[in-house]
């Protein structure tokens, strides 16, 4: 049952990820990105990370992607008429090279990590619950957590400085 769900969700994630790239309209790309995020959220549930699932849907699918759609609609982007990118030899070479590097990385990681699905250590009771995640965030990972919030604050201030033409 878990395997069926995993394969299904992974397939949806992969296919929608591909469709994000090949769509000719930015709005459709955004829609497939939402589907992609939804299936990733499903995979988090399979990993017993309920809190991460809820946050993934709430923050990414529910808030950030709405902003994406908002911007796409405001810009009123036209449909791309070019079917494929120009047959530029340099581009194709670069793409092929990068793909090979990615493939190599994948082979290295998968080959070295395991020769099949490993059981891994048993889950601690309460794994993935809000309480556990919160406790970890405010004890073990307190420093990265606070740094993240400061970085976000800097980003907000930066965005306001860039957006405002003059200050009173």
């Amino acid at each position, binding site marked *: *049952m878990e395997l069926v769900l995993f394969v299904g969700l992974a397939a949806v994630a992969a296919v929608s990820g591909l469709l994000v790239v090949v769509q000719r309209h930015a709005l459709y790309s955004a829609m497939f990105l939402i589907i992609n995020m939804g299936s990733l959220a499903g995979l988090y549930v399979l990993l017993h990370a309920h809190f991460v699932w809820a946050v993934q849907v709430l923050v990414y699918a*529910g808030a950030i992607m*709405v*902003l994406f759609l*908002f911007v796409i609609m405001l810009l009123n982007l036209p449909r791309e008429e070019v079917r494929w990118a120009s047959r530029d030899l340099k581009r194709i070479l670069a793409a092929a090279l990068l793909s090979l590097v990615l493939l190599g990385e994948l082979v290295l990681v998968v080959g070295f990590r395991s020769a099949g699905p490993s059981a891994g250590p048993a889950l601690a009771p309460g794994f993935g619950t*809000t309480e556990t995640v919160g406790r970890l965030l405010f004890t073990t990972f307190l420093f990265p957590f606070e740094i993240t919030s400061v970085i976000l604050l800097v980003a907000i201030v930066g965005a306001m400085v860039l957006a405002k033409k003059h200050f009173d």
Partner: protein
Amino acid sequence: MTSWGVILGHWDLVLGDWASMPEMLETLIIMVVKVGVVFATLLLVAAYMTWIERKVIADIQVRVGPSRVGPYGLLQPIADGIKLFFKEDLMPGHVDRALFLLAPALSVVPAMIVFAVIPFGGTIPAFGFLSKPIPLYLSDIDVGVLYVFSVTSLGVYGIVLAGWASNNKYSLLGGLRASAQMISYELSMSLSVVGVLILVGSLRLTEIVKAQAGFSWWMGILPVPNWFVFSQPIGFLIFFTCALAETNRAPFDLPEAETELVAGFHSEYSSMKFAMFFMAEYANMATASAVATSLFLGGPLGPFGSSPVWFVGKVFVLLFVFIWFRASLPRFRYDQLMTFGWKRLLPLALANMVFTAILAVLWVR
């Protein structure tokens, strides 16, 4: 693992001998029945809310309201439903077909599935033939409140995509307004609940309801239930205001402001697709009221134990307030809406959160 084939093959067992029924099957049947009852009730409420709304507004404006179809016009929603069902389903030529078809469904579904985590009663006893009492909620997940917010945050897609796919300037404006409005008010809405979460210490809706049980004596004379509306009054007011905005109801109904945008995002929709947007709006109102009831009004708790009757009663009181607001308040201007959301509600919600946190720490230590 019970598969559907096995379930269908066991019908004689289900009907014949209750005692030997496998527990898995029993759980499944109870679940299906509960989902069916909740779903049917929600659809019925969504349909009859149109009647209630027209009657209440008519009363407030000293009119009669629907009165011809059935006694007190009670069959009016059914007549309207049949009318919408048989209307011609128009699809304008300039629309984006796929998203145009998808949008109504995307707006109905989130409104409905929020009910999966809302506790609407206590428990039903086992009656001697069930293996355990039936709890009256569909599921009780660890991240209940987060689930509610994540699902409701998906509701905006239906409206935004309808506005865009219609390829019509009024629809597009409605869709843009809806997305900006819903993102803005979602923040204050989530923050207004944090006070309750601090007091309870859990995101489970069943725990939140349980924490509101019992009475305390006000000045030693008046028994006041321990509902969070009394300990978190500001939180409740912010939550309800944001619920008005999130469901696009007056005075925040700018996405479909008929005086300026024809009908906003659903201008181009007709027949059942229009009916689905209509249903989504009323289902959203019912959902928002149900969530507010669970978080602030003690959910199904009431005198003589918890019961779905109390729950439904409280939900209808809130629904009445929704309608009352629509009949009383004029629509906001767009800049007023944004100023109100970001400069009034958000700081107030933050202050409420900080204040509650300080009090909670002082109280506990």
